[in-house]
């Protein structure tokens, strides 16, 4: 299975192909989150006499939004270090990003338990259903992102990060930033605009 | 390995030999394509028939729609004929003929033509678009005013409930009936609709287009009928939105009456049923105890009219709808059909119905949840044949 042509030819850059696919995927995700945000907007006042937007704790959510926002910084720093072939930097910033992401998730879990205590569950009202679905799916995206970051971190331990693989730091980065910008929208639309 | 066995062709070296390669090339022209299609369309144009047709309207609303339809249908037929003619002409005139080996001129396109055949359809569509928009506002206008007969409609799996909200007896009980709608001729009728469970759609083609009855929503449909219908031939209709098991058996009958006949019918409907005191019907009234778990009947009690059975309402968008668990049976004997217009109302059918309702009409009574108002059909009560006979006597007596 060898070809005489290969040895003489440098392997060409295939990263653009993957990046194109990732951007297409993110475009698709816009529709996904857009649908859920629209659902939330439709039902924002449909609380069936249960709790509504007044139970939001803006200062708390602002803090966790800030955490997620900063994880975008650490992510871009990780990518930067990766491009510069700075293995240590990559490792540190990857881990930092995963940590910030986990902090955000912890905040979300705390928030959800608070709300359930205050009587807002998935089945309380259309408002509850659409709130939990939207923020829940976002949380799931963050969780998957954390997993991928940890996988990157694992690969970086023995320097395999630079081998050509389906997933790489840049793609994970794009995904991570996307999850962040979705939260920017959610934070404004779901929290700030409703109180 | 396929590679070795297949002839490998390098571009530019390909043998131009498809004539040899294909045995028995057909030269028949597919003129039939056009012909069959044409026939189909012509047939569909001139066959407005049957009592449930949309092409023979019996009222002004149906007519507005039909006029529009005819206009557009003619335009579409013209487009159809032109396009098919061009297609047939092209394949006949420009078919490859035997013995002619010349190649055609390699035309790549023509911008002027492109513009032309973009603009012409736009013009045609504009000609369709304006009357369409006007038609929407005409047909959708909600009938208003004192002369309008107001009927509230609740769709149920799988029957219709009608409440004439402005027609009440002296005790304030409104006229409630099921499945057979009576309206006076030449009168605007405003149906205000919702659904108790899933989406249904009210459709009586000769009178008007359809309109969905959606849970949690209120919708309106205007009906106007030209002429009274013969007693045995009401306008048939059909629930047009798929609503589960017995969607097909969720039919509608609209009886149109002269104003006088209609008033008589109303007066009749507003009289409570009498409680039978002797004979089979009286025995049937005993057995009827089971039935009032869902059905309700207005009977003449000692102190005037009283309701037996459950009377429920639901409120949607500020409108209160009667939403019974099962059809009101007060004047059941006076109905031509039952089971939502599916079965002729006679003793034989009724006996079958009472013996096993789901055998006649597919339903899912095993999933009923009466306290929560979820009814998916009438259960089989394993009634004895005596009970059945008695109940029939009772029900048919309530005319």
């Amino acid at each position: 299975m060898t070809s005489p042509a290969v040895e003489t030819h440098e392997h060409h850059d295939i990263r653009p192909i993957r990046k194109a696919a990732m951007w297409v995927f993110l475009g698709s995700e816009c529709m996904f989150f857009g649908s859920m945000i629209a659902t939330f907007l439709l039902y924002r006042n449909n609380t069936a006499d249960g709790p509504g937007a007044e139970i939001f704790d803006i200062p708390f959510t602002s803090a966790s939004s800030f955490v997620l926002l900063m994880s975008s910084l650490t992510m871009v720093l990780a990518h930067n270090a990766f491009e510069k072939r700075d293995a240590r930097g990559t490792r540190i910033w990857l881990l930092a990003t995963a940590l910030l992401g986990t902090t955000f998730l912890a905040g979300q879990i705390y928030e959800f338990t608070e709300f359930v205590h205050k009587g807002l569950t998935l089945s309380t009202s259309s408002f509850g259903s659409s709130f939990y679905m939207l923020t829940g799916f976002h949380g799931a995206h963050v969780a998957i992102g954390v997993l991928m970051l940890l996988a990157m971190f694992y690969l970086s331990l023995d320097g395999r990060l630079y081998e050509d693989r389906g997933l790489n730091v840049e793609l994970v980065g794009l995904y991570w930033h996307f999850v962040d910008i979705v939260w920017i929208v959610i934070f404004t639309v779901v929290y700030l605009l409703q109180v | 390995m396929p590679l070795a066995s297949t002839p490998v062709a390098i571009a530019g070296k390909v043998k131009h030999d498809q004539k040899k390669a294909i045995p028995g090339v057909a030269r028949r022209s597919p003129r039939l394509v056009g012909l069959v299609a044409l026939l189909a369309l012509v047939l569909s144009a001139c066959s407005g028939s049957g009592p449930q047709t949309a092409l023979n309207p019996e009222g002004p609303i149906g007519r507005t729609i039909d006029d529009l339809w005819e206009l557009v249908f003619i335009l579409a037929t013209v487009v159809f004929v032109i396009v098919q003619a061009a297609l047939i002409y092209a394949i006949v005139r420009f078919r490859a003929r035997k013995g002619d080996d010349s190649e055609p001129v390699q035309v790549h396109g023509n911008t002027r033509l492109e513009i032309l055949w973009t603009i012409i359809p736009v013009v045609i569509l504009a000609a369709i678009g304006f009357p369409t928009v006007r038609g929407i506002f005409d047909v959708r206008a909600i009938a208003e005013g004192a002369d309008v007969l107001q009927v509230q409609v609740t769709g149920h799996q799988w029957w219709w409930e009608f409440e004439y909200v402005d027609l009440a007896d002296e005790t304030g009980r409104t006229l409630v009936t099921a499945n057979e709608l009576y309206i006076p001729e030449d009168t605007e009728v405003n149906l205000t609709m919702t659904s108790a469970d899933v989406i249904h759609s009210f459709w009586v083609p000769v009178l008007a287009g359809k309109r969905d009855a959606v849970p949690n929503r209120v919708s309106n449909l205007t009906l106007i009928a030209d002429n009274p219908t013969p007693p045995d031939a009401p306008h048939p209709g059909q629930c047009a939105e798929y609503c589960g098991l017995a969607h097909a058996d969720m039919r509608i009958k609209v009886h149109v009456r002269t104003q006088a006949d209609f008033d008589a019918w109303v007066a009749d409907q507003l009289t409570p049923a009498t409680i039978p005191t002797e004979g089979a019907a009286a025995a049937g009234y005993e057995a009827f105890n089971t039935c009032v778990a869902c059905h309700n009947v207005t009977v003449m009690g000692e102190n005037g009219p009283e309701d037996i059975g459950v009377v429920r309402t639901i409120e949607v968008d500020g409108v209160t709808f009667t939403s019974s668990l099962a059809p009101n049976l007060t004047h059941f004997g006076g109905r031509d059909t039952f089971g939502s217009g599916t079965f002729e109302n006679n003793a034989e059918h009724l006996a079958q119905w009472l013996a096993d309702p789901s055998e006649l009409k597919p339903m899912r009574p095993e999933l009923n949840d009466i306290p929560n108002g979820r009814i998916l059909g009438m259960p089989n009560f394993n009634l004895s044949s005596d009970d059945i006979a008695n109940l029939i006597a009772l029900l048919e007596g309530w005319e």
Partner: protein
Amino acid sequence: MVLDSSKDLAPAEPTGIWSWITTVDHKRIGLLYGVTALIAFFVAGLEALLLRLQLTTANGTVLSADAYNQLFTMHGLTMLLVVVMPVGAAFMNYFIPLHIGARDVAFPRANAFSYWLFLFSTIMLLSSFVLGGAPDGGWFGYAPLSTQLDEFVRMDYYAIGAQLLGIASIMASANFIATVFTMRAPGMNLMRIPVFTWMAVVVSFLLIFSLPIFGVGLFQMFFDRNFGTQFFGGGGDPLLWQHLFWLFGHPEVYVLILPAMGIVSEVIPVFSRKPLFGYPFVVFSGIAIGFMGFGVWAHHMYTAGLGPVAEAGFGVATMMIAVPTGVKIFNWIGTMWGGKVRFELPMMFAIGFVSLFVIGGLSGVLHSVVPSDYQQHDSYFVVAHFHYVLFGGGVFGYVAGAYYWFPKWTGRFLDQRLGQWHFWLMLLGFNLTFAPMHILGLNGMARRTYRYPEGLGWEFWNQVATVGSFIIGISFLIFAWNLIKSRKHGVAAGSDPWDGRTLEWSIPSPPPVHNFDEIPHVEHVDDFWHRKYATDEEGRAVRMPDVTGGTIAPETTTGGESEGGGHEDDMHMPSPSYYPIVAAFGIIITGYGFVYLPGGWVAVGVGALVTLWGFFGWSLEPVTRDEHHD
């Protein structure tokens, strides 16, 4: 290059079942899609025949209401999501790389994964017939009917099955987009791509952007059924589902037809011996259809209560789709005009497509006239409309593609005589079946009704339709026999049997694993034709002298607008992998688990582990022995 050297250069084609399971070759995956879809077509067709039997007489008793409702739902669902869409995917998989001069799609293993997920989802959907009942809420699953009977798993099968099919399609579409935008051969700029591949791109975009919306709707349906949420029931609004569904459902119908239009745009020029009339207009009208297709979803909801303003807006927008569609029709006729039309089988089906699709399109315009649609909606007139576009258009188009490209797949022709029988019976049967439905619909017959009473004047046309449907059935039996027989015993076709125009005809039939011995350098639309023909002063095609091999000189630079130069000169094909099928299998276990909640949580867990294993192995496995893109 000498003829035989390609044999030494090329990676060998492996054989045996295992090689099919682990294949990442876009051509094999294309064939797998095709065969699977064909089998599914027979299943869905058989379901349709049962429906027809039931409707032959008034008050038919062949099927129970329950059976009928499952059958029409599964018929519609299967035909759309498991037959026509995958048939499109089959052609796309096989021909996108060949059309743009690439060795494979961008992500061969993801491609295999898409197929396996599709296959398993199909099996899952069909298995519902014996595992608690098939979906019975109609193919558009209107809530709250679809969320109502949570005692049954039927609509859970719908929610999960469609979701998984959607995921498979999204992945495949992203793959195709990346392929076309980054892997074109040098010189293959966007305005030289064959129309079929263009339409594949449009379709991929439609799917990428519409499926996630459907996905959200399906999740909501699933949650309403299983976790007590109130998206459509309770205090929710049933119309939300309709919006989410048709935001997907309408683009979906163009997903079904555009590849067929692409095929027809390939076939008609070849058999008219002229280039496609107005190539850029055909391409742009396809793109326009794609865009406009996103703006008309509510024309399925005219009777649901949107309000007159919205109805008017959507009515007018819907009509306007006739404009770009008409442009295509006229350009096809323009292509035949002045040509030398040869009535080979692919061409006959293509002409059938044009003729029948116009009928279906015009009845679509009749629907867009909103007040008329108040009558036609949910009647057999709609059933007639969409079978004319889906069968008269779609199926005729795809069958044309099958006759056209069968020689490329197998190196052999489909049998002429059988093909003739197939065509004429199908044409006859088709019109007998579906033309009467226009009449039935206008005369008030509602769709999805398992029985109808006597006295409404519907028996005769229903009988005609039933007879017609069996004629279609026979025609497809002939087709199936033809496929089986000709695969091994058909007349040998050579590499370029039709005197084709596009690159796939420049390589052997069937193509070698690596497609192109050397990546071609493209200079024209219909590049291959231009290597064979010049034009004389009158503009007539003139066959060039035999040896003109120079035009396919190997080339290392990237093409005009080609991004990133995604083609390579080496012939390293990605190595086979079984991780895609493992991952897909894990997902399907999870899927079954979700259907059978709460007991199914165990399966969800197990499936998730298997999936993780699949993905993990996938991402750790080197793409080829010595690196290759995945």
